[in-house]
């Protein structure tokens, strides 16, 4: 038996349609579930984070004249300050370098959030691509 007759006789249309729908819906459900995974993890970690925050909230320092002040958890930095720090660090890489090299050297020196910082430097136009995966510093912006 050949042709469309064969497909109909062997229930081919139903198999193809049902199979396609099953695999699409199955993976769609899996996709939805894993998109919510980070919330489930956050929910599981919420009590721990709350406990840590309560402990850190009471952290204070003392100035020379005896006055107490609250130590901020993270210092708020200007993008230019980050850029200058990374540029100094990246001097040993030369005028052109790959982002992975800059990332490696900043991680080695213990700078916080190197991935996010390099991303923000790219978005601010301070790191510019030269093609072939190589980047350099935008001297005009750094000088201003």
């Amino acid at each position: 038996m050949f042709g469309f007759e064969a497909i109909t006789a062997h229930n081919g249309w139903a198999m193809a349609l049902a199979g396609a729908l099953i695999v699409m819906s199955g993976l769609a459900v899996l996709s939805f579930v894993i998109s919510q995974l980070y919330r489930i993890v956050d929910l599981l970690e919420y009590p721990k984070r709350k406990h840590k925050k309560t402990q850190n909230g009471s952290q204070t320092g003392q100035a020379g004249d005896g006055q107490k002040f609250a130590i901020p958890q993270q210092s708020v930095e200007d993008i230019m300050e980050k850029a200058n720090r990374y540029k100094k660090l990246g001097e040993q890489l030369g005028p052109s370098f790959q982002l992975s090299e800059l990332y490696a050297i900043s991680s080695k020196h213990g700078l916080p959030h190197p991935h996010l910082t390099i991303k923000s430097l790219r978005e601010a136009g301070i790191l510019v691509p030269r093609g072939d995966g190589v980047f350099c510093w935008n001297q005009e912006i750094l000088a201003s």
Partner: protein
Amino acid sequence: MDLLIQFLTNTGYFLADYRHLIMIVVGSTFVYLAIAKQYEPLLLLPIGFGILVGNIPFFKGFGIGIYEPNSVLHYLYFGVTSGLYPSIVFLGLGAMTDFSSLLARPKLMLLGAAAQMGIFTTLLSALFLGFLPKEAASIAIIGGADGPTSIFLTAKLAPNLIGPIAIAAYSYMALIPIIQPPIMRLLTTHNERIIRMPEPREVSKKEQLIFPVVGLILCCFLAPASIPLLGPFFFGNLMKESGVVDRLAQTARTAIIDTATIFLGFTVGASTQGDVFLNAKSVSIFILGAVAFSIATASGVLFAKIMNLFLKEKINPLLGAAGVSAVPGSAREVHLVGLKADPDNYLLMHAMACNSSGVIGSAICAGILWSFTVG
């Protein structure tokens, strides 16, 4: 003198016919492509050499051939016919797969699902050409572009077609750099090809640990027939992510998968004997395999374009081609086509997300087809 004549009539030189010679040329070509051109050498070299071994003529009844009981090759071939080797390969695959890019962008899983439409279209085409349902399902799974999955399903449904289906599946996987790029360029505009994907978010270790368990439960509850493939796959992944059984994960992704790959390729090659392989059915299977790969690539790309009609943050439609689960070949081709359009556009990480979802999708499809055609 009689003894000498008897010996000579039992040699391969006496017993050879044109079919053996054709298959020896095919096997030699595979070996050449693997070594000189480096086309998927991990697959083509064992298969090619297996074809050479399997097509050396011998006197049947001596317990030498792969189809003769109690022969060495027959015992090694058991891993293919029973579906053992594909399961072991999937264990190793899971232990070397990093799902973080997929977990960071779960939408890309839908592209892996869309690329499996090649399987169902090929199912219809195979039925149209007169293949029986079990044979058609075995041929259709070539569209999943997953060698172990193709061999697993064929061993269950149509063991007589293992040779041509495996050769077709692995040949087309090796030809991905030739098949996919023209289809990708045909179905996308330059502006679409230069779409940049946003940086994926950081994925926590806990998410990477929970995923294999959740994936196993959701996928195998839906298609229990895919347990022999997805069970080891997610197990391998959990071993890798847990960090507490590094030795086992390391063994799974090195020694174990390599051993299974050697025996799988070699015995599949040896099973493709001229009298079984050289017929009209095999030619049809080869043609349908090309159709399957092309439609799978096209469906993934077109689905991505359809998704873009509804999304604010557009997806680069080239990623749809990476839903074809030829890991990592199709992801690499997507990345290269993307780089040609925009040298600063790095799509590899995103393409690997689609690739790994394609592996899951093709295994689910194998389970579905097995359920439909069993009995």
